[in-house]
């Protein structure tokens, strides 16, 4: 489908202004909303891979994410109620004492486009707040914690351990510049990803 190809290009090149009209045209032409969404998810995957490979940088990633969000706005009313395709809910937040959220927001976007429903708790999130959020929301299958400062690595550990103590079965993924795979394992997280592109892939892997 030509329109779908166009939607993909608009996501990859981050044309947020144009995308809504084209998504609408695709719907009008009879493309199923799910198919359009899948196409956008694929595109974000491409964007994520390029980001991981260092071919594109934060600005490109941000405008792609923005463009996808604009497109999803058009699809939402058409698709509402259709939760069949969701992989479950993911709770995400930056740990206590840490105010960095750019990386976390990109990770959110990739996890969302991997097929999760997302609840974003924002920054400076105390450990217990993650647990509360799991209990307050439906069908939570994954908690993602971000930490960007060496000084908040203890808070990351506390978050993971508090979640694991209260909800032993819950899957937890962690990330952020100072986090290493070894550290993630040491503090008891189930998964780690170095960047937003691989975070989406890893999140899926963890719940499957």
């Amino acid at each position: 489908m030509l329109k779908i190809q166009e939607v993909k290009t608009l996501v990859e090149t981050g044309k947020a202004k144009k995308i809504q009209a084209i998504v609408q045209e695709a719907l009008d032409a009879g493309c199923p909303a799910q198919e359009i969404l899948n196409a956008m998810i694929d595109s974000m995957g491409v964007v994520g891979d390029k980001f991981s490979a260092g071919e594109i940088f934060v600005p490109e990633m941000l405008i792609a994410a923005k463009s996808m969000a604009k497109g999803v706005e058009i699809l939402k009313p058409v698709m509402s109620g259709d939760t069949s395709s969701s992989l479950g809910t993911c709770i995400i937040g930056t740990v206590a004492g840490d105010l960095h959220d750019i990386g976390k927001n990109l990770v959110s976007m990739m996890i969302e486009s991997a097929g999760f429903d997302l609840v974003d708790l924002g920054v400076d999130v105390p450990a217990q707040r993650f647990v509360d959020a799991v209990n307050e929301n439906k069908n939570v299958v994954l908690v993602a914690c971000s930490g960007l400062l060496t000084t908040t690595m203890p808070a990351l550990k506390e978050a993971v351990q508090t979640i694991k103590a209260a909800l032993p079965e819950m899957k937890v993924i962690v990330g952020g510049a100072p986090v290493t795979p070894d550290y993630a394992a040491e503090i008891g997280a189930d998964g780690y990803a170095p960047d937003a592109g691989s975070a989406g892939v890893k999140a899926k892997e963890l719940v499957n």
Partner: protein
Amino acid sequence: MVDIKKIQAERTKLFDDVNDSIIPKRVPVNIFLGIEPTAQYAGIDLAEAQWNPGMLEDAGDKICQTVFSDSIPFMPYMRSPALYTPLKAQSFVMGSNGFMQHPEVMGMEADEYDYLIEKPYDCLIEKVIPRHYKAVNSQEPFNTMLSFAKGLLGKNDSLMAGAGIMMKLVAKYGYRQMGLNGGGAEAPFDFIADQLRGFTGISMDIRRCPEKLQDACEAVYPIVKKMGTPLIVDDYSSVMYPLHMPTFMREKDFAKYWWPSFLKLCEDHASAGIRTSVFCEDNWMRYLDYLQDLPSNTQLTFEYGDPKIIKEKLGNKHIISGLYPISYLKNKSKQECIDLAKEYIDILAPGGKYIFALDKVPLVLDDFNMENLCAVTETVRDYGVYSNPGEQVGTVFKKEDYQAQSCRSIDSKYYQSFEQRQLENPKASGTELQKLQQLEEQLFAFVANLLM
């Protein structure tokens, strides 16, 4: 008796030699800890010390006794609550544990670019500062007036206290001589990113309105230039810039939007004899060729990167510093730390133009192991000795090699130039007007400092 004055002269000469493209006696060591790890090391309450820098004197002294460095190893530079509290700062807020937190504040909306470009200083004062400082509020002129004055007085007070401690310690231990010949500022693009648009905002702007961003860099240029200009210009004056955004950008965008105004700024200062010092945050390996174009003997402090390639490409023209990973000091054995220090010296010291420093400033005591840090700096002192001191090496910095650049003047109703004041006060003498102009400059520096 040890002759402290002689030690101080020797240490100062190590740095001067490096700046003069001369092989020093040994590799100079430039290590410093801020007030957080210092307070922790001395076991004093950080929140209390934030308010009362005097408490830090003994703590700083303890660091001086513990860690070897040729420049003073304790920097009481701080984001003083005496400044930020009365002004109700939004972007610097003290946490309960005494750490100054730095939340992101968007100082300027995307649709305000035109105003910034037209009247940059007015825009900073009217739009940006009130968003960063809630006590500056046009609805509350009288409170604003008083809060501003409190902030100014509070800042000067804590600055004096900090400087007093430093001067004492520098004299007591004979550290490298310090003066008022250093300045600090941001690259025009980074200034807009950090203070006005935020990291996300600017990242979108690069794609959405790059031409405006380019014009905005030109508009803030005279402001950041003045911000950086040291109070005293002598043979070793320099301006220090932490470089933020480049590694988050595509090279094409960097080359077009970030680099030109910064290069121009450095050459502009260089033409007045002011040197450049940069902290290349993150990994700059893909930008080394650009750094090559900066004025000779720019001090390049790197966070990450390959020391060999950096030295090969840049070591003849520039001064290399940084790179020693602080994570090593935390995770490795003492011997491993020492071995790495020797390895770095073997790579970076030959041909001079090398100052030993860590890849980043430790935020807290837990970022490193003090014993390892001490072992490393002592190793540099003892191992980094040259066999050919006094030899001339590489390119030399000469202000005649650079040309002053034309740029806009700071044309604002909030800033009075010497000429304007002269017109308004025909009876005032030249010296009086000069004095008043100095006060105007101090006020400008204070305003600029609110946005750093």
